[in-house]
């Protein structure tokens, strides 16, 4: 009688101990899962904020923001961009819009798409960045010259203004 009773108690303890081990295991697994998720998110340093009410087309906004983050170093060479599907899901827009943005970035040398793997920031784009910045300045200067001509402001006056601005 006592032997049977002792066996039952042992079995209960074994059962309780297994339940305890299982719970510890589950807790560990969940915390590991969270760490893995956070790490995954951390790999994408890119931040994109889309303004749906803006007149600027969404794919343009995406291109502008990615270019800016490459220029200021937030996105570094060989950083992976989110997949087209993942980004379209996060921004709640059509995948085609994201694809257009990525295609244009690739055409201008800012990113490279490796078939089957993903899209990565192009390392050799410092030339392109410099050139696009020069073009931006040229466009603005051209506008200034046009306005000057419209109002009869002379070349000399423009140079004076330029000297003053560049001395600041």
């Amino acid at each position, binding site marked *: 009688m006592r032997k049977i009773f002792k066996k039952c108690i042992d079995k209960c303890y074994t059962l309780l101990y297994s339940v305890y081990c299982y719970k510890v295991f589950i807790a560990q697994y969940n915390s590991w899962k969270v760490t893995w998720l956070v790490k995954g998110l951390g790999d994408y340093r890119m931040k994109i904020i889309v303004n749906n009410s803006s007149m600027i087309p*969404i794919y343009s906004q995406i291109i502008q923001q990615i270019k800016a983050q490459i220029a200021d170093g937030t996105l570094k060479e060989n950083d992976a961009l989110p997949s087209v599907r993942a980004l379209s899901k996060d921004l709640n827009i*059509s995948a085609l819009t994201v694809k257009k943005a990525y295609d244009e970035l690739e055409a201008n040398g800012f990113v490279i798409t490796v078939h089957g793997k993903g899209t990565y920031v192009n390392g050799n784009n410092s030339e392109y960045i410099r050139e696009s910045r020069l073009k931006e300045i040229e466009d603005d200067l051209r506008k200034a010259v046009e306005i000057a001509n419209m109002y009869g402001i002379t070349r000399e006056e423009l140079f004076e203004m330029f000297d003053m601005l560049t001395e600041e």
Partner: protein
Amino acid sequence: MIRIDGLKKNYKDFNLDVSLDLKPGTINGLVGTNGAGKSTTFKAILGLISYKEGEIFINDKNIKDFKYEDKERIGCVMTDSFFSESFKIKDVAKILKATYKSFDEAAFYKKCEQYKLPTDKMIKEFSNGMKAKLKVLTALSHDTDVLILDEPTVGLDVVARDDILGEIRDYMEKDENRTVLISSHISSDIEKLCDTTYMIHDGKIVFNDDTDKLLSEYAALKVDEETFATMDKSHVKAYRKEKYGIECLTDARDFYIENYPSMVVEKMSVDEMMMILIKGEKL
């Protein structure tokens, strides 16, 4: 991929005349008023109605040559719930298991649990939202290349709609060659999800382009009668006379922003475009 070439179907008081070209890897929206021909088009694609003229291809195969195995590769949601109202979820699962070789029972039950569909109630006791979710889950429960969804989010609140649209995105993520054709009355569903938008009215396709072009290159111009008379209308596709002015549909938004800086130029939406095309006049 889904392609319809010159489908013509005549009814007593309605004639359908449509062509569609949906590329693999795209989600495509079909919008139109009730009775415009959306459901008829869907039924034609699913081989549920006969037609004298036109050819329909799914995955490069003419649907007239479809065998059972090809039909299994299509998932669909139609407007009428096609399960008996006295079925419970386990009965639905039995039917799906017997119908589709690739039915994933465990995943189906998991999804039903995720969306809190009651396993102990009959379908007739389900709310509208639950019925809608069940239909979508059955379409996603087996392995398919093409999804045909006729108003899958009707009657759903914004959170439930977001869940369903998320399921469609996940569906596309798993296989880049899949194609989805979805119809909806909810403008934002189409604008957020669909790569292309087709508009159907009176049995004909009246608009078809990339959704992001609709949102960025098209616009609504709001002008008074005098301005309308004198302005450059070469980029105006249609217009609608309102009480206090005229609303124009253009596909060259930037042209009007640059050349008419004081003109009211508004972003276009799927709803707005439908209204102008249907209630307005073409130019």
